[in-house]
């Protein structure tokens, strides 16, 4: 049985009541956290800056990060960008008490030299976003509220 996935919140950033960022880890396919940790110098600063901007509530510029709202198959996907580096993840709303809270769960690292994102990478991110193991990992950080007489209710994207 594979070890359960884990979710690690981004450290060293402003704590926001509206948005959060973290890394889904525990599988060889989930390499966004490893890639982010290995960044140094300008790469690390650029991603940190772009993440800060999103956490602060900015919705652009698209050269820094963007969702894929117009792509119905990948509308929960999200990407942070710097040069050829891409950190792909999915957006979800894990807070029962505040359904507006947005969490960006980063999953996959890729390098890209073409204009359009590789749909296979987005497909993988979507699959991770829908997986129960990912939901369970995130639920450990954002535990769902138990209602009387009810079991745990999974969060939805």
């Amino acid at each position, binding site marked *: 049985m594979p070890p359960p996935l884990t979710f690690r919140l981004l450290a060293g950033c402003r704590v926001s009541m509206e948005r959060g960022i973290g890394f889904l880890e525990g599988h060889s396919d989930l390499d966004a956290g490893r890639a982010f940790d290995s960044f140094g110098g300008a790469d690390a*600063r650029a991603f940190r*800056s772009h993440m800060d901007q999103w956490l602060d509530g900015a919705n652009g510029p698209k050269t820094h990060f963007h969702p894929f709202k117009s792509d119905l198959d990948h509308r929960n996907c999200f990407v942070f960008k710097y040069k050829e580096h891409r950190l792909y993840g999915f957006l979800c709303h894990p807070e029962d008490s505040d359904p507006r809270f947005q969490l960006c769960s980063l999953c996959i690292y890729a390098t890209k030299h073409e204009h359009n994102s590789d749909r296979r990478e987005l497909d993988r991110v979507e699959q991770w976003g829908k997986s129960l193991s990912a939901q369970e990992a995130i639920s450990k950080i954002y535990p769902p509220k138990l209602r009387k007489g009810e079991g745990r209710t999974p969060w939805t994207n």
Partner: protein
Amino acid sequence: MDELKTTTHWTAQSIENFTYRVASDFLAQVETTIEKGEVSRSELAHRLNRTLGRVSQLFNPSNITVSSAVRLVRAAGMKVALVAYDDNDAENKNGPVNSDLFYQCWKQMGSPKTFFELARTTAPIVNFGYWDEAATCGIEIGRVHTTQNSITRPVN
């Protein structure tokens, strides 16, 4: 980047980090202007008399100086200000305030160009009128300072 796996904000780790973040926020404002279609990169290159490649280098936060920032925004038809502020976060636990936030607030205030314009925007409304007692205790005219100004005044 082990030093960034801490509870303090990553820009508190070094001046270089803080500088990079400030430059990145500034360049995000210019890039947003480009994305809105107000100016293109090729138009910027033309106005700056530089190649597209050289203009792209200007969008690297590591390369930004005050002089290059001014050149860039002037070519984009904008202006730039260096703003010092105190957000009660001397230890920088929360990182810098996004420069676009200052711009949005300035626009919300009616884009004042001088301290006089700012004072006119924020000065409390002063009403001259009769006190309630005027009808029974003789006429007394007084200044009634309300707590409402152009920001807090309810919109009709």
